[in-house]
């Protein structure tokens, strides 16, 4: 199981050309609408904007299956927890089905955005459009850049343990101890690297008090407003239709 690393390359899909704040906002709108309800009709209607997102992300069925399996896993997990394991007589399949749809509506758009948004663009957009504190946003971005290095460090630490004559074999307690020791060594390496990186950033004026400019503009244009507006409209329409049909069930109640 290899760890995916975000931001390896800029995606060329239409979804990647939106302001990341707009894309993320659309995800959250869908999530809010999906979370507010727990009936099959509302969740099914919300699949309409989700399908639109799939088209915008321009992923084929095969790529969708390859990237989307964590969503299916999550859906299965929720289904099992509720349908098979709920107390009381019989299986609650009919009750659990909307919850499965809900997981798809919430998780899939997030997955699409995560695969197309570039982390640098996201940080730029958060700072420029939502006035997120710049030092925290770019400090986090710098930390994100270290992620593949930390993954490589993790593998090397595993090899180094084997070279020292330490392995767990089939003993789960030994495996847990080995994991903990390796995780600790990773934390030591991570903190040291972070401290050096902070020195390098300060040497380039990162802690200068006062204004800061950004070289990459992240405009919030008409198309971004359109994306957000259309998502909002579809989410409201789905809920309204369901209410009109008398099928809408609020989650709290």
């Amino acid at each position: 199981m290899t760890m995916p690393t975000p931001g390896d390359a800029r995606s060329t899909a239409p979804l990647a050309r939106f302001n990341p704040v707009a894309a993320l906002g659309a995800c959250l709108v869908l999530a809010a609408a999906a979370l507010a309800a727990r009936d099959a009709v509302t969740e099914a209607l919300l699949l309409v904007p989700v399908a639109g997102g799939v088209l915008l992300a321009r992923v084929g069925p095969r790529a969708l299956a390859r990237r989307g399996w964590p969503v299916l896993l999550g859906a299965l997990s929720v289904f099992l927890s509720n349908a098979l394991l709920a107390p009381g007589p019989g299986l609650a399949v009919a009750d659990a089905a909307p919850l499965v749809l809900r997981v798809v509506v919430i998780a899939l758009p997030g997955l699409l955005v995560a695969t197309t948004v570039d982390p640098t663009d996201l940080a730029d957009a958060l700072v420029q459009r939502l006035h997120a504190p710049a030092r925290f946003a770019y400090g986090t971005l710098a930390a994100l850049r270290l992620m593949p290095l930390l993954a490589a460090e993790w593998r090397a630490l595993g090899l180094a343990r084997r070279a020292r004559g330490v392995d767990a074999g089939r003993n789960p307690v030994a495996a847990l101890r080995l994991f903990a020791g390796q995780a600790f060594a990773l934390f030591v390496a991570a903190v040291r690297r972070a401290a050096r990186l902070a020195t390098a950033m300060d040497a380039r004026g990162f802690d200068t008090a006062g204004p800061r400019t950004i070289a990459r503009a992240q405009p919030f244009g008409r198309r971004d407003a359109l994306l957000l507006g259309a998502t909002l409209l579809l989410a409201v329409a789905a809920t309204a239709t369901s209410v009109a049909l008398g099928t809408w069930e609020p989650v709290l109640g």
Partner: protein
Amino acid sequence: MSLTIPHGGPLRPLDAAVGVVLGAVTLLLVLAYDQPRSAAIGGALVVAVGAGLVTRGVRASRSAAPWRTVDIVVAAVLSVACGVVFWAWAYLWDAVKPAFVAFPPGQALIYGMWFLPAALVPLIVRRPGAAVFAELVAATVEWMLFSQFGPAVIVYGLVQGLLAECAFAATGYRRWTLGVALAAGALAGAGAAPLDWVYSYPLWSVAWKLAYLGIVVVSGALLTGLLSWYAVRALAPTGALSAFAAGRERELV
């Protein structure tokens, strides 16, 4: 733990007012759901005192030393490392599910790992807002690694971070002890469990939901609070924390 009120500066009328209002709201809410009067009064008292202390802490934090770059970057890198651990933990979570068919809430025993940055990072950098920042970064990383829960993890991160932050704020950001770490882990759990009721287990009985809450809180205290505490104590002798007060509380060498 002793019952003395931690030093965090004088209490002001504002602190007391916030405590009284939130305590009253708790009282009314618990009574509205037909719970015993003793539970309502007890809960309201806890919430009132806690809210007063937190308000005082937040007020005091405005005069605290600002975040240095090394604080930001080390916090972010540790949170990113935790995000990677979360990503792996989510698969473990699904893998152990079959072991808890008889009593599904028991699965929450391993839940506490998801709050790790909420105590680990504040214990190291000792800055107001560290728990919230750490949880937000870790959740964002988990989302970008294509988590099965999509952007919902960011909401989880925010809620867990805010509640863990309360533990540190209640001491006026002056105490970084084991007790506070345990409280932070437990509070993060108290925030996460109700979100799960809504998102993952809406069909469970009230008894199961309460059992789940209790187990998540205990798991949070142990896996997050205790583990963070030991991790920081073990990190200090490696010299990795030399830029932090947490790493300097040892003999001269």
